[in-house]
């Protein structure tokens, strides 16, 4: 009898915990569950809105020419404009200081306003806000292209070698090892130094060609485990072709790993681009990127710190948001990870426990 009671107690506790977890996902599709879990990760949601905001803000600010279309940005200056340098009202006799002011008038400031050049001007008077926006566009573009290229190659290589195994796997994995031995920063510098003038897309493409290795290993591991699962056997017995098994059965289950590592690759990519540009082997002048801006003006930090602050902070915000989104996605896709039980839930289960214990 006692044994039975204990078992009862256990099932009650378990169903108490599981019921809460199960109730949440009742009648929901995979995508809805993931979305629900993602939305619960507060930092990730904030980051997602931050990065959406930044994207809209940055890409709408400047004039753009896409084919025959000419888009007019809302910002009054472009990177090629040469407005007059501001003299006079800057601290310590510097020129071209930022006009942005965030201190309202009643606190003794100049009032909340942007002014003519909110981020200041560079050496020759170009509007620094426009430069930073242009740089951010470039850096984000590089980040996204690297993410796509590396994600595609990594997924294909990992999927093929994990699914087919055998000699295909051996060859592909040796090839991966071989790419890993070449440090990205070295190969990037070698190519960047000689072909830096070929433009930003070329830079992103070849960096993507060398950053897929980690991703492909993860995907391979995922495929290796998934292909041994019962549902794959079932599909095979039902007569599904390899192609169908890969695309319909395995890939949807591996998509979490893929998306998460693509996000993390992207946050690494923006830092890689800025580092290469800093060394002078990435984006080269007259093109602009955030890393290049920092490297150009690092010596003027003591006299004109704004030339250094704005691009750096923008890099950090972008990389940080992407990292947090990746974290949120990982939590959302990984059903094994137990989330924190809220205080209320914990109390409920303890009262449940106590009641059971007392009644015994």
């Amino acid at each position: 009898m006692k044994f039975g009671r204990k078992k009862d107690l256990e099932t009650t506790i378990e169903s108490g915990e599981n019921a809460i977890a199960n109730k949440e996902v009742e009648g929901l599709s995979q995508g809805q569950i993931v979305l629900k879990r993602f939305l619960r990760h507060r930092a990730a949601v904030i980051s997602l809105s931050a990065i959406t905001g930044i994207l809209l803000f940055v890409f709408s600010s400047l004039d753009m020419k896409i084919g025959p279309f000419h888009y007019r940005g809302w910002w009054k200056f472009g990177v090629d404009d040469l407005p007059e340098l501001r003299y006079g009202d800057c601290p310590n006799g510097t020129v071209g200081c930022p006009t942005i002011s965030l201190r309202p008038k009643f606190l003794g400031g100049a009032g909340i306003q942007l002014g003519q050049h909110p981020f200041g001007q560079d050496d020759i008077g170009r509007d620094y806000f426009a430069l930073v926006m242009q740089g951010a566009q470039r850096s984000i573009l590089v980040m996204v292209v690297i993410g796509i290229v590396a994600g595609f190659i990594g997924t294909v290589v990992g999927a093929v070698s994990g699914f087919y195994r055998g000699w295909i796997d051996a060859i592909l994995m040796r090839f991966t090892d071989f790419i890993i031995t070449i440090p990205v920063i070295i190969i990037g510098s070698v190519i960047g130094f000689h072909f830096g003038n070929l433009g930003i897309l070329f830079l992103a493409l070849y960096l993507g060609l060398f950053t897929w290795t980690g991703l492909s290993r993860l995907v391979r591991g995922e495929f290796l485990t998934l292909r041994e699962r019962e549902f794959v056997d079932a599909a095979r017995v039902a007569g599904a072709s390899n192609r169908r098994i890969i695309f319909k059965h395995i890939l949807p289950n591996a998509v979490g790993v893929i998306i998460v590592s693509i996000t993390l690759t992207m946050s690494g990519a923006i830092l890689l681009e800025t580092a290469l540009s800093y060394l002078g082997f990435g984006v080269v002048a007259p093109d602009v990127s955030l890393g290049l801006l920092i490297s150009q003006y690092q010596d003027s930090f003591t006299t004109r710190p704004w030339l250094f602050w704005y691009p750096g902070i923008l890099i950090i915000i972008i990389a940080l948001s992407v990292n947090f989104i990746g974290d949120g996605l990982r939590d959302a896709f990984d059903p094994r990870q137990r989330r924190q039980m809220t205080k209320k839930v914990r109390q409920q289960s303890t009262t449940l426990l106590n009641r059971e214990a007392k009644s015994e």
Partner: protein
Amino acid sequence: MLAYIVRRLGVLGVILFGSSFILYNMAAIAGDPIGELRLSNDPAAKQAIIDLTLRLQLDVPPPLRYFIWLKGVLGIFVGKADFGLTRDNMSVFNEISQAIPITIRLVTTATIVAIVLGIALGITSALRQYTRFDYSMTFFAFLLYSLPIFWVAVLLKQFLAIRFNDFLSHSTVHRNSVLLLSLLSAIFWGSIFSRVRKTFWITFVSAALGTASLLLFMNQLEWYTNPRLGPITVFIFSVGIAFGVTHLSVGLSNRTALYSSLTMAVLALVIYFPIQSLFTAQSTFWQMILLLIVTIAVATGVSFMFSRIDRGPLIRTTILTAFLSASLIIVDKYMRTWQFYLKEDAINYRPVPTIGQVSDLLPQDDYWIRTLDILVHLFLPTIALTLISFAGYTRFSRGTLLEVLNQDYIRTARAKGLTERTVIMRHAFRNTLIPLPTIIVVDFAGIIGGAIITERVFGWYGMGTLFNRAITGQDLNLLMGVFFLTATLSVLANLIADLLYSALDPRIRVGAGK
């Protein structure tokens, strides 16, 4: 096992051959080392072209030239490696062997600091999972992940070096800074020890008061220009270390271990004055090593005398206490050197440098001043490198510990009635450390290549600078030399990591299943 290693080495050889072949040809086709000279009208340029062509064998097409280079490199196995010549007619081998120690000096300290701090914070944050401390550590780690190192480096130069040097000229901490620092330390310690609200406030208040009074006291003593610990402080700290180490390793209830460690603290006080006479200007690095060996020997002897049963943990505890107390004495010596260091003409009260690896103008006759100079130059780059690499260790050790804490053997340990300390330190912590060597080894190899930017920002002449020079100067042999070294290190590191992993974790067998 041996067969496995040999096979892996064979594969590594093939991989290295392939990647170096590709890189060589890519770099050779992409860069023309005599391109600039060709455009010049200077009659001397013609001679220079002929010279360079002869010396670097530029008339041989790159794929064939690669094999000439490879033949030289393979000379390693017969004891005379030939990595070719740089453009300036220097031996690449010599250049690299000069640069390597500098990079290693830069990277080792940063890696050690990052590992120790990272693991400590990671484990604390795992044990305080889902508290405010944990959340802020997570945020902090992600923030560090997202920092471009060159940007941090410039900030560090400005705020740590230049401001600190300015600060030394009046050398008192301002009232507001005292308030701010006390508040920060109060929040930090309070959030670590906050199990219940009451302990939080007790820790909070005592940490705040402690920090504030310490800072004010240090102001009074002009501690920043003339720092020192003195025998009493060394003794107090040593006693604290003895208690702390014993508590963490075997628990305070083990009286023998506690007494043995306390003996080491007393010994630190006893030898404090005699040992000062050993620290002369003529001290050498080897003397320090010798002292370290003596310390460990004494600690082992003492703990042997104390212990009868269960010697291992006790000896470890005592040695650790002895080592830490001895380091305190060394730290004290360096602190006492500080004011003489400041007075040197080459330093002139602006000690923290923003650039370089040593002060060239400093007289080299005093061991302590010389090494202090090296340490001071390591300061900023180490902080920069630590900041970017320690986030990884924090996240990793946090994740691993959380995973380990969910294992059945932890539940068993708790069910046996072991104390929480034993469960955490013996059962959980040790298993957390198992996967760490793999990432440490790989990280260390990677960071040698990754120090490129750090070296550039801080003006160090290590591997990164060589690499930079090789690319901008179209110096193929130099580039290949640097690449060969980093690539070999990284593949070897991967191999060692795999072997270590299987050695530490018996569940994993290398070479199995094939």
